[in-house]
Structure formats: structure tokens, C-alpha cells
């Protein structure tokens, strides 16, 4: 899909709303926020200086951004509603794009969600489960090996990311898994 930057937009919060949207906020996976004023512009302020971003489309190179005389190849690798994985210069960046209102709600919910975070362990790569080393209901330490996943001819030990209790195991020995398949659920301990 070809992206274009149209003439500066004025936007409203919603169909019924008369209030104008002042900004959009891109929030990264570490909750770092990047605010962009609406009307959205192609002028970015980086390290105290303003410069223009130009989106270029090239038959050989594909889409890239031209910023301060440097070229940055860019593409959207994944999107789902307001979530984006942007591949820029070979590196993935994960953002959710929020309005000021949805940002407030997100922040509120995440503080409510709280410190006791449970973990859903997903397959980091496609492969085959060689052996399950734990069982449901067992208390595990962080770093304790849970199962062995064979991928690209290597046997990889998959470890518990947090201390807690194994709530559910979704795989068994000999089974093939795809990337991001749910393997083990852990309930966070004290």
C-alpha cells in the first residue's frame, strides 16, 4: 500500500464530537511516548532542530524515508487495529497509536492491571517440542528450564521468565509448534 502525506489534516475526535483532535500519541513497548500534533505535519523536531521528512518510493529500493540527507528503508511488518510493527533500517519498532483519551484509558488500565503479571510463554520460533520438563501445578523459579524446543537443528532450553506456578501446559513432547504458539502459562508467584 502506498502511503501518502496529504495536505495538513484537521481532525475531530469522533463523528458526534465537535472537539478538534489536538494530537496523536505513538507509545512504544517500553511505554515511551512520541507525540505528534494534529494537523499532522512532515516536519519533525529531533535533538532540538526541525527538519522535513520525505517519503520516497523507488522501484529498486521500495519505500524509504529521507531525513537530513539520510535514507531509511521503511515498511509495516505487522498491524492489528492501532498496533503497528514498523521495520525501519532493518530494526522493528512496536507502537500503539493513541488519541489523548485512549492514552489516558490505557495508562489507567495498565496501573490497575498491576504488578502481578502472569506470563504466557509462546514459541519464539517454529520447531518441535523435544521434551516437557515441568508439569502443571509445579512452582518454578525464574530461569528454570520448562521444555526443550528443537528448531533449526538446535535444541533450545525454554526457561521460565518469572517465578510462579505452572498453570497450564499446552504442548507435549514430539509436537510441532509454530512461532507464537502458546506453550506454557505461568501464574506469577509472590
Amino acid at each position, binding site marked *: 500500500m502506498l*502511503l501518502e502525506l496529504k495536505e495538513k*489534516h484537521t481532525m475531530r475526535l*469522533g463523528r*458526534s464530537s465537535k472537539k478538534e483532535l489536538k494530537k496523536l500519541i505513538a507509545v512504544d513497548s517500553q511505554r515511551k511516548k512520541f507525540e505528534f500534533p494534529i494537523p499532522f505535519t512532515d516536519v519533525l523536531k529531533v535533538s532540538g532542530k526541525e527538519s522535513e521528512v520525505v517519503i520516497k518510493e523507488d522501484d529498486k529500493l521500495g519505500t524509504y524515508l529521507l531525513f537530513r540527507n539520510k535514507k531509511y528503508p521503511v515498511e509495516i511488518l505487522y498491524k492489528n487495529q492501532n498496533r503497528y510493527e514498523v521495520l525501519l533500517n*532493518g530494526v522493528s519498532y512496536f507502537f500503539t497509536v493513541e488519541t489523548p483519551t485512549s492514552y489516558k484509558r490505557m495508562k*489507567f488500565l495498565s496501573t490497575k492491571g498491576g504488578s502481578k503479571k502472569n506470563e504466557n510463554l509462546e514459541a519464539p*520460533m517454529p520447531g518441535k517440542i523435544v521434551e516437557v520438563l515441568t508439569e502443571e501445578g509445579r512452582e518454578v523459579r525464574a530461569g528454570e528450564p520448562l521444555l526443550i524446543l528443537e528448531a*533449526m*537443528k538446535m*535444541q533450545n532450553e525454554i526457561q521460565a521468565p518469572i517465578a510462579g506456578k505452572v498453570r497450564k501446559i499446552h504442548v507435549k513432547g514430539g509436537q510441532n509448534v509454530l512461532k507464537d504458539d502458546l506453550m506454557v502459562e505461568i501464574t506469577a508467584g509472590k
Partner: protein
Amino acid sequence: MGIKSILIANRGEIAVRIARTCKNMGIETWGIKTSNEPRAHYLSHMDKVFDLSDEYSEILVFLDVEKLMDIAAQTKVDAIHPGYGFLAENAYFAQRCINAGIKFIGPSPDAIHKMGNKTVARQIATQHEIPLAMGTTHSIRDAEEAKKVADKIGYPVIIKAASGGGGRGMRIIHKAEELAQMFRLATNEAEKAFNDPSVFIEKYIQNPKHIEFQILADSHGNTIHLGERECSIQRKHQKLLEEAPSPALTPELRKEMGDTAIRIAQAVKYESAGTVEFLLDQSNNFFFMEMNTRIQVEHPVTEMITGLDLIEQQIRIAQGEKLSLTQDQVQLKGWAIEYRINAEDVQAGFSPYLGTIEKMSLPSGTNIRIDSGIVEGDSISPNFDSMVAKLIVWGEDRQTAIKESKKALNKFWIKGLKTTIPFFRTVLENESFNCGTFTTSFIEKELDLMHESTDEEEILAAWFATLQYINEREKEATDQVDFEQGKNINPWVLNKRLKSF
């Protein structure tokens, strides 16, 4: 007798690489078209193609000795080049070629067997007083015996597959408690990968450098080395970046290690090109690790600094020629670094990234070489390794090679896939890499992040995501942008919901 035709029993970039030399030497090449990748790029480099694309078989043809012998007979080739991987280090295959009167481009089956079995190789090294890390020269039966040996030589130890290579079937053990499980993992992996569960134990040398010597040996008893390659930048014992020469070696140490490498090669009456791998510890003690009896993935860095074509050397040796140069005539000129551009997600533990290359734009120049078996539109499939290309950069000295590498990596654009390029960018900025003190623990010890990313880049990415969001919302509601669509709820309801969390 001169070789007039060669069957290339391999695929990908190495098949292309072998075909290139054959073309220069006026040798006819045969490639094999498989059902796995009937439109593979390497086939376009072959003079003739043996078509197996209609045949579906359990076992890949490049691993199928009987099938390859049959193809060789049908195509009436003079020789077979196995490349690397697959049957390149299979003594039985080499013997079958000889029996059929076809030249196997590589060493004798005897040399392959002796060096291929790591415990036999250790015995030979011991007999010839080659320095070795402490350990066993026989395979270990069970975890109990492993524990006895480990207690004797002291932790940390490393368990290795006797038939291993390429970093597979290896486990490091720091504490006695880990031994039983690691022993099981290593034997499992060895059995799977090499059809041989036997393993042996060695003292684990901490923070070593991986230094290997390129050997050339003819059938007239001449053996020389072409200097070293340093391959310390590895993850999970798999090489990612190799350079020649090594910043760690003095001319004296180079001579000592090179002479040792030659002695090992001579001990098995080695013929052809081969590689002797050493570990170099922090006090400059070196230990023989293994000999690879094939052409290596990283052979181009040696070619760049010696001006030799190693595939040509292999072919000339196979047809009985004497080496065209003596040890004194070997000159190492400048510095070369190779980057393995793999389809891997360095932000997710280097896991394979499967996908299709939508666009690829490569750097070019007199000091840049790219070996690749992949073109735009090709896919990285789970059937084969994840290599997209090898980028090799030459400079007058190391500093220049690094500087030129940065430029080249910035011009290496791939769309549709994640690759190891951002990893190399951060390596090139790293201080211990730049001063040459890095070891095989580089990734664990020196890097916090596996990729390079500037503030500027992150802001640009955020800007692009936001723009994408705006464009999509505009498409959804052409008359008016509705950011809160579906989210407009009565404040009372909202309040109640939030409280329930």
C-alpha cells in the same frame, strides 16, 4: 587427467560459487533441480541441469548417496564437488565416488573419517604432540562416567558430539548439578544431527578466540597454510562474522599455529583445501579443536587477502596438480571481513525469520564481494538454512575494512524480511570489536542490545506508524475521521467498567 565436467552436489550460494570457478576454468557444470526449490537461483548458473523436480522423496538428494551416484553415472561427469554441509564430510560418499571412478573434490575417505570423528582426531593430535584442551580421547558412555571425568578435569567443561561439527551437539556445563541434563541434551542432539549419540568431554576454555587456519595440500606431499581467519563473533557456536587476518596474531604466533596446522594435516596425509580450528586463550595458548575437511562458508576472506581462488585450488589438487606456490610465496595483503546476512530476527534471540524477499538492493564496488544464492522474489523456507547472502569487504587495513563495511551495510537493503544487518551495525560500533580484544563470549558480554538503533530512527518509526494510522482511519471514514469509533460509551458505564478491574 584433467577434469572436464563436475556435478555440483549442493545448492544455494556455494553451488553458485563453485559454478563460477568452473566457468573460469572451462569446466562443464551439472546442477540438480529438486522438488523443494525447482526455481532456485543457483540453477541458472549451471551449464546443465539434472531435473528431479517431479520426484518427491523422503531424503533430500544432496544427502542421498545412491541417488547422487546414479546421477553421476547418467551425466558421465568426471568429478563431484560436495560444497559444504550435506555429504561434504562423509567418508562413505567419498569412497563411493572413488569406487565409481569419479573424482571426489576433497580429501581421502580416510582423512575425512579420522578428522570427522572428533575422538579419533584427538587421539591423532595427542600422538603428534599437538596442544589439546584437557579431556577424553574416547566417547563417554553415560552421565555417571561424564561426571567422573568432569570432576577430574574441573568445571567448566564442554560436552561435544564425537561426529559433530558446525557447533551442533555441544553443551557447556558450569556446575556438577547441570551435568546429567546437559549430557542428555547433547546426546539427543548428536543422535538427531549426526546419527551418532557418542560424545566426549573437554575442559571448557573460557573467553577464547576462535582462530582457524586455511590449509592447502596436494597429492605430492606439499602442504601449506594461507594464514588464519578469526571467527569469534558467534551465537550458539554458529559463526556470524569472520575476518582475515586476526587482530590477535603476531607474525611469530601465526607461524607457530600455522606450522601446527600443517602438522595435523600431514598426520592424516591430507589432500585438498581444509581448515584447522584452534581456540586461543587469553594468555595466547592455543589448543587444537577440530579439522574441517571441506571448503568453509567463510573461505572468501582468505581469498580476498591471498588473491587465490580456493575452489580452483581444490579442483587442481583433485586432478593431481602440484601446488603452484610454496609457503614463502604466500602473501597476506590487507584485511577482509565477511558478514553472514541471515534471515533472522536479532530482536528475538536470532530466531529464523521466514518470509519472502520483496526487494533487495546490494552494495557494489571493487573491494566488495557478495556471494548469494538468492534473488528478489525468493523465499526463506524452513527446509534450508537462513542465509540470504555473504557480504565480504576488503580494506588495506582493519580500520579501513571496518569503515568500508559500515558504508556497504548501509547500502544493503532487503524488504520483506528481517536480517542480521542491524546486528552487524552494532558490532562495528563496539569498542572491543574495534580494538580486536573480543572473544567468543562477545555477544553475551559486550552487547546489551543485539541491534543498533538511534533516537532519530525511533522517532521516524513512530511518525511513520502514526501516519499509517491516520491514513487508515481516513480510508475508513472518508467524510470525517472518527478516532473514537466504537469507543463512545456512556461515562457511567465506563466508570463502572473501570472499577470492576
